[in-house]
């Protein structure tokens, strides 16, 4: 018999649950995180207009990543968490 080997290595991650969902968006603070990919800001702006027609957010705050390709800085993520209740981000393209 001849052995053969798997060159891929395992993918193993502890399962992480989602945060609890919300019933209503009225009175919530919305974060919009722009990853600075081309047209992400325009998409988010258009979406924001539509969302504000339908819901009474307590606040809408806009944040930008320093680099579209890298993960957002931990300090930015923490700031978003501290200042908001729900988040919207774009775009993976």
């Amino acid at each position: 018999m001849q052995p053969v080997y798997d060159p891929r290595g395992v993918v193993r991650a502890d399962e992480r649950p989602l945060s609890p969902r919300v019933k209503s968006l009225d009175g919530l603070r919305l974060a919009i995180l722009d990853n600075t990919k081309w047209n992400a800001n325009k998409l988010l702006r258009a979406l924001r207009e539509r969302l504000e027609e339908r819901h009474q957010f307590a606040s809408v705050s806009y944040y930008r990543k320093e680099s579209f390709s890298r993960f957002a800085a931990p300090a930015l993520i923490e700031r978003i968490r501290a200042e908001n209740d729900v988040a919207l981000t774009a775009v993976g393209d």
Partner: protein
Amino acid sequence: MHDSIALESLGVPTAVIVTRTFLHEARVQRAALGMIGLAPVVIDHPLSSLTEDEIRGRAAQALAQVENVWHGTHAEPA
């Protein structure tokens, strides 16, 4: 996906928008990071070369999906 997973881990329901071409990558990323329940909002590809009107069309595509993500009723497109 990494940023949205970070925010979800910290208690912030997050709607993350990807274009259809990048849905597969998004699925791989969330599996690798362990948050298989994070369903992205999917819009048609491309986005980067669109006119203002076409971008508004993508926003319309995303709108209900975004609300559903926050409410927990979003079914990720196949």
